[in-house]
């Protein structure tokens, strides 16, 4: 078989596909609108940081030290504090969801604080129907409380207990604990999984629906040429879409990019190929745009969203789910790209992850090539 003949056919197919991409708004819409929508939705809409949480403080004790504690709550950027002397008022508001927690400073607070032997308790009531926020309030309150204690003991050195452990914590890689810093790289992974899968699954299903696939198959073109003719143009489009998402993430959300473009290209190329082949596989099996679309959402988007570790910590999932997540290629990509953004080049992470993704790619390709025979049955 003459190589030039093959290249000419491939050229014909790629040129045709490029024209179709440029003329048909739907693939451009997928490649550019989905990333923008996801960036805005998740970048702005989904924040795991707490800020200005509404907290009611019941001051049963009004002594200066109790007031000093309340002031440190008021100064904290995490809380939006309101004060009352009656607990009943806040209980009603908590039930109505108007505030997220109640802090009670009991009547004997200052008295017990004075007495070295005694423990001075404060009571925190949180809204367990939103466990995430409840947890955060607990932690932050403990933080504020500890800071205040330390401050108090500096002010009154005579009260400082001997041998108290002073913990200074440091957070590496995302020192501001800004959630955008790990959400944005995760979004890039999700966008790539979804865009890659949708691009190929929809366009190929369209060829089946319009009967052009049948006409194509009756020509001397080989099945590998048909697959490459689809993959190459959509790979380029998908990578442009990826690059835009990365740039927008860095510019709009000020996410640091500490790694190298080289590794970004390596890992995202491999992941993009997996997504594109998955899309081909879906459309070959479904042969209808609607079913292909739904299947892409279920196969590409949901597992990537839930099981990749992008939002939900894999190590805290039940073991069986953890085992399943090993089969989600996005899991490796999310880890890789988050590392790339926040920690920099760590080949010890990248190389095994990339190899695992390549293994996935080969499996998906082999299945696709096996399923996509040049026949209608």
């Amino acid at each position, binding site marked *: 078989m003459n190589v030039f003949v093959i290249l000419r056919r491939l050229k014909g197919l790629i040129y045709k596909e490029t024209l179709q991409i440029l003329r048909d708004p739907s693939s451009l819409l997928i490649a550019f609108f989905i990333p923008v929508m996801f960036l805005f939705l998740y970048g702005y809409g989904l924040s795991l940081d707490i800020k200005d949480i509404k907290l009611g403080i019941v001051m049963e004790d009004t002594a200066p030290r109790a007031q000093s504690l309340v002031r440190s709550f008021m100064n904290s950027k995490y809380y939006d504090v309101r004060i009352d002397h009656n607990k009943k008022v806040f209980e009603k508001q908590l039930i109505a969801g108007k505030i997220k927690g109640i802090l009670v400073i009991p009547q004997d607070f200052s008295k017990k604080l004075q007495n070295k032997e005694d423990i001075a308790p404060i009571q925190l009531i949180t809204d367990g129907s939103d466990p995430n926020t409840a947890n955060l309030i607990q932690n932050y309150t403990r933080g504020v409380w500890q800071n205040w204690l330390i401050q108090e003991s500096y002010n009154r050195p005579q009260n400082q207990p001997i041998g108290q452990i002073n913990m200074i914590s440091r957070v590496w890689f995302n020192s501001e604990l800004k959630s955008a810093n790990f959400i944005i790289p995760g979004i890039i992974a999700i966008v790539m999984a979804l865009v890659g899968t949708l691009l190929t699954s929809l366009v190929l299903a369209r060829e089946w629906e*319009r009967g052009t696939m049948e006409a194509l198959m009756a*020509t001397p073109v080989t099945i590998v040429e048909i697959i490459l003719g689809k993959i190459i143009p959509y790979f380029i489009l998908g990578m442009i879409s990826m690059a835009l998402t990365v740039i927008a993430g860095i510019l709009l959300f000020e996410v640091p990019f500490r790694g190298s473009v080289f590794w970004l290209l390596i890992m995202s190329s491999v992941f993009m190929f997996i997504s594109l082949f998955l899309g081909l596989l879906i459309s070959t099996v479904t042969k209808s745009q609607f079913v292909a679309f739904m299947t892409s959402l279920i196969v590409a988007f949901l597992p990537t969203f839930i099981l990749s570790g992008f939002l939900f910590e894999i190590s805290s999932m039940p073991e069986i789910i953890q085992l399943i997540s090993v089969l989600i290629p996005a899991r490796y990509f999310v880890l890789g790209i988050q590392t790339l953004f926040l920690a920099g080049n760590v080949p010890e992470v990248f190389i095994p992850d990339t190899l695992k993704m390549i293994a996935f790619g080969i499996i998906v390709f082999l299945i696709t090539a096996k399923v996509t025979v040049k026949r209608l*049955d």
Partner: protein
Amino acid sequence: MTKPLVKINNLSKRFPKSNGFALNNINLEICTGAITGLVGPDGAGKSTLIRMIASLLLPTSGNVTVNEFDSAKEAHKIQSIISYMPQKFGLYEDLTVIENLNLYADLKNITGNEKESQFKRLLKFTDLERFTSRLAGDLSGGMKQKLGLACCLIKTPQLLLLDEPSVGVDPISRRELWTMVKELVNDEMGVIWGTAYLDEAEKCDDVLLLNEGNLLFQGKPDKLYERVKNRTFQIQNIEGSNRKVLTTALTNSKVIDGIIQGRSVRIVTREESVFPSTQEIDSGLDSRIVKVAPRFEDAFIDILGGGPGGISLLSEEMLNIPEYKEDIINVNCLTKAFGDFIAANNICFSVKQGEIFGLLGPNGAGKSTVFKMMCGLLKPTNGTADIAGYDLRTAPGEARSKLGYMAQKFSLYDNLNVQQNLNFFAGIYGLSGRKKHKKIEQMIKIFDLKQYLETSAGDLPLGFKQRLALSCAVMHNPPVLFLDEPTSGVDPITRREFWVHINGLVQKGVTVVITTHFMDEAEYCDRMGLIYQGNLIAIGSSDELKNSVRSEILPDPTLEDAFIELIKAENLQRQALK
């Protein structure tokens, strides 16, 4: 010298999940130098056979060879010497004419001077030179079909496979395509032309007749006519109702098949030269019985064992429709615009009670638009339509209760079974209790649906789908019936049966409005309107339309001839106006 090109031995094809064979033990040979017509109703196995020759489907048993290459093992070699045009022409609608041609030139490795000269030749041949930069999606059906053909001919194939190339295309383009393909055929090239139009089959050099996966006949059309030689007659100059004459003729034991042709009735007899007398069929003193040339369909019906007879159980059970003195349907200047596009332009006509009125025209001409406005499914931009005195805009409910509607493709609920469909439609037409029960029982009996009661409508054979759709449309005794392409794709026997019911209903006073693209079916209509590019360009009975184009060149025009002439005249007139 013509030579054998395709050989098929004991070929069978069975699709997974289906009960029967799509193709059943087919043996045949196809030669170069001829157009081989592959004829049969929908679901007969035409497309399956063509796809198997193109080695897009594997045989379940038996084998196919093209130029000695085996379809299962040497698909690539076969695909290098054939060209295949699938049903939807296989064009990329968002590419221009020239871009489509370029793609196929690349795929078939045609370059340089050869490409230049081929493009020039093909564009001239298909008359597409002026449209090279137009998107394929913006071309008319006829032009798409020509472009599809041009894409197939960039590299001259040894075998050209055309799967229903003339469906949905206006009659002029159909004839042009035929002439083009006829010109192409030579001793080095064979053509297989799949079609559901039996009149197209008559023109083929060689014919393969398929029905339900079985090859009923292979050979020259003339050979098929031998079967029905001296058995086809026309009853002319009929006094009174031609439908009554047809019904009487069909109940006569000497007659196996009959149809209406304008004012006349055409029959096929059981034996050569033995036909009933005019008294027997009660056609009047002045009527005469004349021998006519046999047609393809006569032979097809004869092979299948004759038509269904003339008695319609449906019309026997149906009540007489009270007489309505004025025109029962009035369409006044209906116009429908979708944005800039005028789908129907100022359409006016009226229909009397007991008439069959046909709306005819190629796909996309606007007949369905007019139809939908008449049934109140589409709001007209301008104009009115009333049925039995009710305006569809002011009293849509009352007007609609007067009509039964059978939509294209028989729109039934595919997921419901036959019983559930009947229950549903009886319910929406306001039948309930004992009355509903009795009516459904009646329909099951008349249309012989008992064996399929539990079958999903989507899995029914096409003929039964059509029966079920008709039964759902007539359950509430409507005085007016709207039928949108009611016989599209069904086999001739089922079509006959359908028309027996319609004739019976009309004799009870039902008025029928029908769309069709089968010309011989248009002959059943008392009057018809020809719609072309949104305009009603002619209206009249079949004989009137034929007479209007009769000339020295066309001394005995068929209805199709009449339509082609009328469309040509319209085109000329428009050019003159420009």
